[in-house]
């Protein structure tokens, strides 16, 4: 479903500080499965996620999503794919302070032009589903780490994407909360979502939820995935 062909990503190309973050990765990611990109810091996990999630363009190589080539797409089409196909869960949550958890969760849906009331209804249903409905009207700076993580999950799901991308999702969670998070991912996988995670946390890549682990090192795939 997601096909990467000879992907390379070079930062500061041609300059003294040139850095190759991804070096010729070819990879096929199955739909409705959980795939983890595992590797140490600087192995290219986050870069690869941002390339697959259409947040950056590769220096060379092509990515196909649902049999559609996406690396060549003009920006306005990429934006549309980003909004409708992918839900993002970030390492640092990236919630906007000063507004409520509900308002944060509704934000990705606004550009699609849907009525605010229907977005709100859908978001509140998700708050119910993830047991944080009482916190929906709380400002995000008042939330605990686990609660903030759930709000980011709701935000990632508010547009009902088919692919969830999570970058080091358990980096700021203790073991109990990390296991809870993996439980939520299991639910999402059951619902038919494709999960793509970058992590070097054993709680994540050793979880039963995960179907495949892709080891990365120095921007290359290191050995076969399990």
């Amino acid at each position, binding site marked *: 479903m997601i096909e990467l*062909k*000879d992907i*390379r990503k070079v930062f500061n190309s041609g300059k003294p500080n040139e850095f190759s973050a991804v070096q010729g990765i070819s990879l096929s990611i199955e739909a409705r499965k959980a795939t983890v990109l595992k590797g140490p810091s600087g192995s290219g996990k986050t870069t690869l996620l941002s390339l697959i999630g259409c947040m950056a*363009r*590769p*220096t*060379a*190589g*092509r990515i196909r999503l649902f049999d559609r*080539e996406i*690396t*060549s*797409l*003009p*920006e*306005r*089409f990429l934006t549309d794919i980003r909004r409708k196909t992918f839900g993002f869960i970030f390492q640092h949550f990236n919630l906007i302070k000063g507004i409520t958890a509900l308002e944060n969760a509704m934000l990705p849906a606004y550009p699609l032009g849907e009525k605010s009331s229907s977005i709100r209804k859908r978001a509140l249903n998700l708050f119910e589903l993830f047991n944080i409905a009482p916190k929906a009207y709380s400002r995000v700076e008042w939330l605990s780490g686990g609660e903030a993580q759930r709000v980011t999950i709701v935000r990632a799901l508010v547009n009902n994407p088919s692919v969830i991308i999570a970058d080091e999702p358990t980096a700021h969670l203790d073991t109990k909360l990390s296991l809870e998070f993996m439980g939520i991912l299991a639910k999402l996988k059951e619902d038919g979502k494709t999960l793509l995670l970058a992590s070097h946390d054993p709680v994540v890549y050793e979880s039963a939820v995960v179907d495949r682990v892709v080891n990365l090192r120095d921007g290359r795939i290191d050995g076969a995935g399990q």
Partner: protein
Amino acid sequence: MIFHPTVMALFVGSLLVTFMILYSASYALLILRKWDLQSGSELQLNLERKTYLISTLIAYAFGFELLSFFLYVFTADQMHTFFVGAMCAAGSLYANDYGYPTLIVKLVNFLLAGTWLILNYVDNRGYDYPLMKTKCFFFLLLVPLILLETFLQASYFLRISPNIITSCCGTLFSADTFALPTDTGFLSSIRAKAAFYVTLLLTVGTGFFFFLKGKGAYLFSAVSALAFAVSVVAIFSFISSYIYELPTHHCPFCVLQKEYGYIGYLIYVTLLGATILGLSVGLLMPFRKIGSLSEILPSFQRKLAVTSSALFLVFTAIVTVRILLSDLILEGY
């Protein structure tokens, strides 16, 4: 050279446009030679990224081309007070050998640049750069014309001097110079008007027919081109005379002056706009088969056709109102 603000604006503007065009041309050539959407090579991905910069540069340069046509005419009109004998832009442009050639090249570039902008707009609607090579090829054909325009315009402004004695529009566009139908009698005047109104009726008719039925795109474009030519002749022939209320005066520039409420700008903007949009309907027809455009192009062409027809109607309405309100009676004299 006369250091008039609009002269400086045109001079500097054309130099900037030339720079932008030449920079873009180098990439347009590269795209024509190396573009391969199937390839994931670094060069191809780099070209894909560059297309945004190039398209934006060309769009701004051509946007300036559209404005500069009217600014040039306005400048020529403003400068007429500097030359002995000149009464409007006609005299200013006659002040040296480069004035009228510049105007003609600017007019051609105006029509072509407008058409390119529409092509670019359509290309940006497709997800796979459907017209990238076509618009680069079209752009490269335009490059020599833009360079010629820059050269002619610079030559015109650099060689112009307030001491020049030039001719007035009364001499340049007199009945002797233009043996037009209105100067030869009643029937001819009627015929000229009939040709004008029938052509425009046909154009608007085919435009609305395409809008409603989606058929006859090439016919509409051909008739739009004909309507442009017939309208230009009509402006020289009888429309100008009605506006000036003087049967022997056929100047196409005096209508741009304050005395006539600057109506010339409205006349030329609607006519040129309608022509560009009308031509584009047929021009886009072969691209309907392209997968990424097949859904959006028919409705876009319909919009172009109806807008073009509306502009032709506005143009016809403006000149008709001026003819009806004019105290001049051409027929029978």
